[in-house]
Structure formats: C-alpha cells, structure tokens
C-alpha cells in the first residue's frame, strides 16, 4: 500500500511538472530549471526514498523467511507436469500419506513446505497466502507460512512449464485445528470398501482398465502406479485434474472419457470407448473415495 500511494504521488508530481513546463509562461518556468532541479529531483530525492524503501523491504523479507518453528507442520510438494504431489510427514520426518492438488493445514500453526520437482521448473504460488517459490530440479526450496483464518484459496503454478501450464492449479484449505485432525485421520486410512455393488463394479473397472498402472489407491491390489496422482481419497478433494474440474461424478466421467480434450497433451489418455455403465460405475466409485 505504501508503495502504491508513494508511487502515485511521485507520478502525479512529475507529470504535473511536465504539464507546467508545457503550458506555463516560459519566462516563469525558466526560473525553475537549473542544476538544483536535477540534483534534488533526480538524485537526492530518489536516493533517499529508495534507501528507506530498501531497508523496509529487507526487513519484510527477513520476517517472511524466518526459520520454521519447531512445531511446524511439514509438507513436501513435488511438481509434476501438470499436477502437484503433496506428501505429509510426521514429526520424525516419516511419510504419513500422499495426496494431490490440495494442501490442508490448521489455522494458527506454521506450515513448512519443502518444494522439489519431478521434471521441469514449476513455481508454487497461493496469491492470497504467500509469494512465489520455484521448484527446481536438484534443489529443495522451502517456504514457511502460518494460515490466519479458515477457508479455501486457489494456488497455481507460476513458472511456465510446458503445454498445460495454464491448468496446473491446486487448493489450499485452512481448517480449524479439530477439523484438520479429522481430515488427517481420514487420510491416513486406506481407501474405503465400496458399500454398493455398483461402486464395487467401479473399483473392478479401475483395475481392469489398467488405471492402477499410473495411479495408486492405498488398500487396492493392482493400483500402485506413481506416474499420476494418488487417488486414495480423491473424492474428498476440492477439485480434480489439478483444478481443471470441480469434484463431481459428472466431472470424473467427463475427465476419464476426454482428458485429452479438457487438458490436451497431459499424460492421461482419453478412455473414449468405455461403455456407459462401466463409466458411470467408475466415476461414482472415484467420487465415493472420501
């Protein structure tokens, strides 16, 4: 805010001076000109304001890059073309579970996100939460932030990463601590058993059509691929396909049939020849994975 007001004031002042030079009587304007104008306006004033701004901006950067607190929630984010793998670690640094395209955290507790990439450079950005940090091969970058109030925010990749850079989003969800504990508890469990025959058929189709070669569903035999997002609790996520679609049965169906149309050149093929009942069962089962 300081920047914008300051910038606006300077801009108006300089333009005012130009207009004065253009339209006022030259005999009067001539008195203003001289080395003192350049010295004070062009050298001293910017030097002083910039020095103040520099000190201020360094103090802000130091504040936002403070080393993490001991009790920070530790999350690893791995960028993929074009989705986000999110790994939750426990206090000792052991992997607890893996999810995708969503990060959840309790209000009031610092979160430390460690950023790496599986392929090209991506950049992690939740505009309403924190500035950007790049995900660079061979580097681990960290950012630390503390969510202040509960809510859902959208984040997006901010470094051009190829074909579907435009559709590489995720959601950040801040929960009240108790709610967050519930969510953690849910995520630690393997995928639920399908309660109805239709959902069971969906699960069968998942294995039969080879979805498990790329996607892992914990607790399901034949589904341990790691090329695509872990789908163990995909039904509980705010969106699917990295923010491309809302999380509904219809969206699941649409995505399975026409992934290449919705997000061309992503690594999931379109399963165009699935028959209607199988597709409905598959989509319903995925949506039920909460």
């Amino acid at each position, binding site marked *: 805010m300081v*920047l914008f007001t300051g*910038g606006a004031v*300077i801009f108006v002042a*300089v*333009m005012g001076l*130009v207009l*004065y*030079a*253009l339209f006022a009587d*030259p005999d009067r*304007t*001539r008195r203003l*000109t*001289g*080395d003192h*104008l*350049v010295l004070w*306006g*062009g*050298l001293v004033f*910017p*030097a002083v304001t*910039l020095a103040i*701004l*520099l000190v201020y*901006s360094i103090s*802000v*950067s*130091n504040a*936002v890059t403070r080393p993490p607190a001991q009790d920070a929630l530790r999350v690893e984010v791995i960028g993929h073309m074009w989705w986000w793998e999110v790994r939750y670690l426990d206090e000792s640094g052991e992997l607890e579970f893996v999810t995708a395209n969503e990060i959840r955290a309790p209000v009031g507790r610092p979160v430390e996100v460690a950023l790496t990439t599986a*392929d*090209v*450079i991506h*950049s992690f*950005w939740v*505009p309403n939460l*924190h*500035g*950007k*940090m*790049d995900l*660079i*091969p*061979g*580097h681990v*970058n*960290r950012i630390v932030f503390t969510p202040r109030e509960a809510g859902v925010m*959208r984040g*997006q*990749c*901010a*470094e*051009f*990463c190829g*074909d*579907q850079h*435009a559709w590489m989003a995720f959601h950040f969800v801040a929960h009240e601590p108790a709610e967050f504990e519930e969510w953690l508890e849910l995520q630690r469990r393997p995928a639920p058993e399908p309660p109805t025959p239709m959902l069971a058929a969906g699960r069968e189709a998942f294995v039969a059509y080879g979805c498990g070669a790329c996607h892992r569903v914990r607790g399901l035999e034949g589904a341990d691929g790691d090329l695509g997002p872990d789908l163990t609790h995909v039904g509980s996520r705010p969106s699917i396909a990295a*923010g491309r679609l809302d999380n509904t049965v219809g969206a699941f169906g649409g995505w399975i049939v026409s992934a290449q149309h919705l997000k*061309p*050149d992503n690594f999931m093929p379109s399963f165009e020849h699935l028959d209607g009942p199988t597709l409905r069962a598959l989509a319903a089962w995925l949506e039920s994975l909460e």
Partner: protein
Amino acid sequence: MTALKKGEDAPPEGADPGLDQLRRVWAQPKGLSGYKEINNTDVGRWYIITGLFFFVAAGIMALMIRAQLAVPENDLISHELYNQLFTMHGTTMMFLFAVPIMEAIAVYVLPNMLGARDLPFPRLSSYGYWAYLFGGLMALSSLFFGLAPNSGWFMYVPLSGPEYSPGVNADFWLLGIGFVEVSAVAASIEIIVGVLKFRPPGMSPDRMPIYAWYMLVFGFMVLFGFPPLVLGDLLLEMERAFHWPFFDVERGGDPLLWQHLFWLFGHPEVYIIFLPAAGIVSTVLPTFVQKPLFGYSWVVLAAVGTGFISFGLWVHHMYATGIPTLSLSFFSAASMAVAIPSGIQVFCWIATLLNGRPILKTPMLFILGFLFIFVLGGLTGVMVASVPFDWQVHDSYFVVAHLHYVLIGGMVFPLFAGLYYWMPLATGRLMSERLGRWAFGLMFVGFNVTFFPMHIVGLMGMPRRVYTYPAGFGWDWYNLTATVGAFMLAAGVAVVLFDSWWHRRRGPKAGFNPWNAGTLEWLTPTPSVNYGLRSVPVIKSHYPLWDNPDLVESVRRGEWYLPDARSGHRETIRSSTVASRPEQVVRLPHPTWLPMIAAFFTAASFGVAIFKLWWIAGLLMGCLLICSVVWLWGTEDRPSPNRYDVGCGETLPIHLNGPNTHSFWGMALLLIFDGTAYLSLVFSYFFIWTASPEFPPPRFEGGEMAVAAACAVAMLLGSAAARLSVHANRRGRHGLYQLLLLVNAASFAAGALLMAQTLRMAGLGPTENAYGAVLWMMVSWTGFHVAISLIMTAYCAARGLAGRIDAERYQTLLNSELFWHFTTAVTLASLAVMHLFPQVA
C-alpha cells in the same frame, strides 16, 4: 542562435566538379545491383524497414494472443500454437526488433551526425544486416511449419533441454538468436569505432552529440552483455545435440546456471534497448524546445552509470529461485539504484522543457507519451525491485504490465518519435501532422487501455504465459478491456506505417533542416545523400548549426575537409580518439556482393545445423571461409604516394600500421567480446563447482601436470614466434618470417593436442558428468581458437608470398598477432583453472 535560411537544393550537375565526383563515387549501383550497396544510408534504411517488418510480425502475434485471452476458457487458439506465439512474440520483439532497430537507426544517422561519410567497416555492417535478415526470416518461418520455439523467450532448462523439448523447435531459437548475436556484435564494433575514431576534426568527446554518447555506451554494453547469452546458447546446444550435461541434474549440472547466464545477458539487454531510445529523446527533445539539452554532463554520467549498474542486477529475475535472502538484498539494492540515473535523465529532460516553449509537433507528442509511460513503468520497476513485493507479483500479469510500460514506453514511443523526426532525411518529405496526432492518440490511449488493467489482474493473481484461464475470478473484464486496447494500439501503429508509405509522394517537401535542429545530420540536403556532408567542417560545439550560422554555406561550398573525391575512392577522415585531430584518410570499400553472400553461407550453415546435417554445415562454413579470404585479400592496398591532400591545407596518410588504426581497434573489440564469453565459461566452471556435490570428481594425478606444462610451453613458444615474425617482416627478412609463422602454427597445433591429452589421460569424457563437460568445453574453446589461428597463419604466409605483407604494410599481421596472443592467454587461463585450481581447492 539565429534562424537558418531554408537552403536551396544542391547545385545541378556540372556546376561543381568536386560535388560531381562525390556524387559519382558514392552513387548506388543501378538496378538489381543496388543491393550490392554497403553505404550506411542504404543499408541503414533497409535495416530500419526490416526491423519494422519484424515489429509488425510480432505485433500480429500479440493480437492473436490477446484475441485468445479476450474471454475465459476460449478455444480460438490451441495451447500448442499459443505457446509458440508467446515465445515468438517475446523473442521477435526483443531479438529481431528492439535491438536490431536501434542498431539500424545508429547505422543510418550516426555517421551523418558525426560528419563521417560512412561507418568504419561498411562491409561488416552490411554483412550484419544480411545475416539479421536471413536469420530472422529463418526463425520466423518456423511458425508457419508449427516448429517454432515453445518454451518461452527465456528458454529455461530443463523444459528447453533435450528431454522435454526433443523437437527442433528449441534449436530454431538457439540458432536464430545466434544470428542476432552476430549482427549485434558487428554493429556494436562498428558503432564504437565509429564514435571513437570517425568524428570530424575538433569534435572532442565533450562536444559529441549526446546520441553518440548513448550509442557508445550501447556498443560496450553489447560487447559485455551478449557474451553470457552466446555461451549459454552454446552450452545448451551442446547439451541438446551431443548430450554434454551442463544443466542436467542427474549428471552434476544445474538448471540455475542457465538462468544466471540468461539474465546476465537479459538484464543489461533491457538497458541495451533503452539507452539508444533515451539517446533519441535527448536528441529530439532539445530541437522541439529550441534550446540545448539541459545538463549534458549529467546525462552522459547517467548513461555511463546505467551501463555499469545494469550488470549488477540480473538476479532480480531470480528472486523466487531460493537464493539466500542476504544475497537477494544486494541485488535488490542494485536494482533500486539503477532508478537513480533514470531519475537524473528524466529531470534533465524536464529541465530542458522548462527552459523554453515546447513545440507540440508529432515527434514531441511521442516524447511526452514516453515520459508519461516510462515514469509509470519506472515506478512499478522500483516496486518489483523490492524482494517481498516481487515474490508476490513475479510471473504474474503485473510484471507483464510493468515490462510493457518500460519497453513500449521506454523504447517504442521514442523510436516512433525518431521515425517522424528523421523521416525527412530518408524521403525528403514531412509526414502528416494530422495523421501523426491520430496515430499518437490511438497508440497512447490504446497502450494504457491494454496494459494498465494488467497491473490489477496481476495483483488479483493471474499468472503469465497461460493459454487460457477459468471464469469467475473477476479477471474476465480486465482481459477483455486489454484486448480492446491492443487493437487500438495496433490501429495507431497502422496509421504510422500507412503514412510512412503515403507521404513519400504526397507529403509536403521538407526542405533544408525542417525542424531547425542543431546537429550535423541536418546539414545534408533532404533527402540525404550517401556521402553525407559536402565537406567536413571543424566542430566547436554541441549544436554547430545553431551556434555557427555561416557553417551551412561554407560546408556547401566545400570549404572544409574532403570537398571532393578526385581519387575515385570512397573516403572519410579518421581522427585521433581524444583530441579529434585528423590522422588518416580512410579509403572505404565500394559496393560488393560479398557481405550478402557471406551472410547467406552463414545462414545456410546454421540452418542445416538445426537438422544436424553436420557435413553440409561444415561445407557451407568452408564456403564462408573462402568468402572471408576473398573479402580481406584486397585490403591494405599500396597507395602511391601515401599522402593525400584533404583540403584546409592538410595532407594525411592513406595507409597506416599500428595500434591506432581502426582495424586494430575492431580486432581488439572483437576480442573483448570473445574474452567476455570465455569468462562466462570460467564462471560456469565455478558455478557448477559450487553447485555440484561431487565436483570435481577425479583428481588429476601425476602425468597430466607434466603434459599441461608442455602445453603451456608450446603455446608460449607459438606466441613468441608470432612476435618475432613481426620483427622479421619489418626487417624485410622474408624467409625467416615464413619460418617463424611455421613455428607458430606447429606450436599452436601441438598445444591444442596436448591440452586435450591431459583430459584423455585422466579418463574424463565430455558426456559422463558436468565436470568433464565444462573441461572439454575449455579444450574446445582453445581448439576453436587454434583452428582460427592456423587459418590466420596460413593467410599471413600467403600474403607474405604475394607481397601483400611487407615492411611497409603489415596491419594484417598485427591484427593476427593480437588474436594469436589472445589464444595463448585463453589457453593458459584454462590450464590454470583445469589443473592448478583443483590442487589449491
């Protein structure tokens, strides 16, 4: 200052024999042969037109981009095409428009401003122009085959590397840019030597037109700014074509190395574009106030200061890469500091405005538009220099807005001011004031309507380089507004282009010095003539036309230097660098196809290299080599007598040897460029060394050190033989001269082989890891220079046998000697880095 008389047209043929000679000698060949012309007036005009062509092409890409983004989830343009379009928009605007057109303007106006008849190396600037044209068309054509580069104009690895961009798209970028580098280096050498040595008598540096100062800084910035990109280009192409791992993490490379090299070039690049534009502002503005530029020394210092500071802020493009906050603070400080010289210039311009009553003709309108947009862009620039603010807006539309404010405001508006201003020199007519006002209005309003909303939508979180965006985030209206503005801006440009064509026949005749300007380029009749001034006067002030009203007539009557061309040669005066005393009459080459043919072979060999047809590329390079030999063979003619009466009671030598000649300076400047590229390689070595944990993997043990020492001895021996050959030649001992050249060649060849041997003994290959790759790159560097050295040695031997190098004429030998010593220096430095440094570390 007194008003100048509107001069009559030049006298008719036959009335003035001296003038007739000038007209005849400098005449452009008729018909198709007109394209043989190498004079700066013709080449400069083609250069400017070509630059505008690429501007329009990139502008059309921008319109396509804006059309796609007009509404959310638009499917007008596929993501493939969109990614190619935004990559090519940036690449074309930066590399094929902004830099070349600034060189073009300098090629066109600088010699006239300096009272020179041409630039120092007309064939070189012509070669640079044709290389730019062919290379640019080649790069642009890739769009029509769907093969255009698509990883962004910044080409970040690994996205642009062999794994994620296996096609030829990225190679088009790398090789296309190679060309622009060739032409930029050609132009910068031309401009530096032109400004330093081809000034009129009496025009000491403190009396130079301010534009010449800006272009001098521009020239040096290109020499120091482009090499990191050249090296980055080379490394990436080596990684793509031969799998030398410089950026591959698996094998000890680091993708951040590319970012450092790219932005080491990329940020100075912004000022490489801006400074010439500021030079135009500082030239045009005083004319329309009819008062001298206020604070000449302030402005010179600011331009030089900008040049220096701009090399210290590249990391501000990399705030989000995880570099420690402490280092970021330094770059943040430097980034803010660069605002100070800009502030000084802005206030000098305002002080100039305050000094008189501004005349609001079209060029002046564009200058005022520039001030408005540039000041706003500068302020947002200070904001993004602040680290935490940048973390927020980096790679968002806020930055898109900022960079267009700085580049369109800081470069395109002054450029258009310059076009309107200097157009009478090219066409002899004035462009329409009425259309000019329309064009300015459309461009100014259209520009702000396009780019101001982008600040807001960027702060709202819209990232850059997305081919589409979801609805419902409040971004929709801002984007639609921007699209409407873009078409308005384009309409404004279209009006300018239309009038530049239309006014050539319909516009009012400009007559002599239509704006009543004070600088020398207005001393020629309009449209201007290839030889520039009728005679070259002694200059005593910044605005000779204002300060010395009699000058016009005396120059026209041929009362000063070089009033004719009775020798039948194209000639211009070379003066001493500081005092600007006339020292030499330089005989310039006449029209020739050679530069165009050489550029064609360069383009063709680069073009087939894209498709990895190495043999054909080599063959074409061979043709290029033959061209260069033919080109150079005729230099150092033996004039007899070696004195020439230049008028004003002075005679000057025609041929000179030694380090004061312009060709020696040209070679020295080329080596500065080369040496900077080499330093970038050394930087890469140390960068990978700090970044990679297993670096350096195997220690050299025992034997290699002895071989390295033998290599050093061989190189020193070669250099010593070179030095002695110069002495032998001067004493007229031809046999000894040839023998010493042979020793030079043999030692250099042995040196290169020994250097490679040290790596082979250690069992290091170029593809296993980044360490080996960097070391082999150093060996290749020496290998390449030794190869060129051997060609030079053979060439000097041949010239000796043909009697074209002898005791009186040996500049070729001196220039070659400089290159030979440079080769030795580079090799010794590499040996120290390769073999001594790991022992110490």
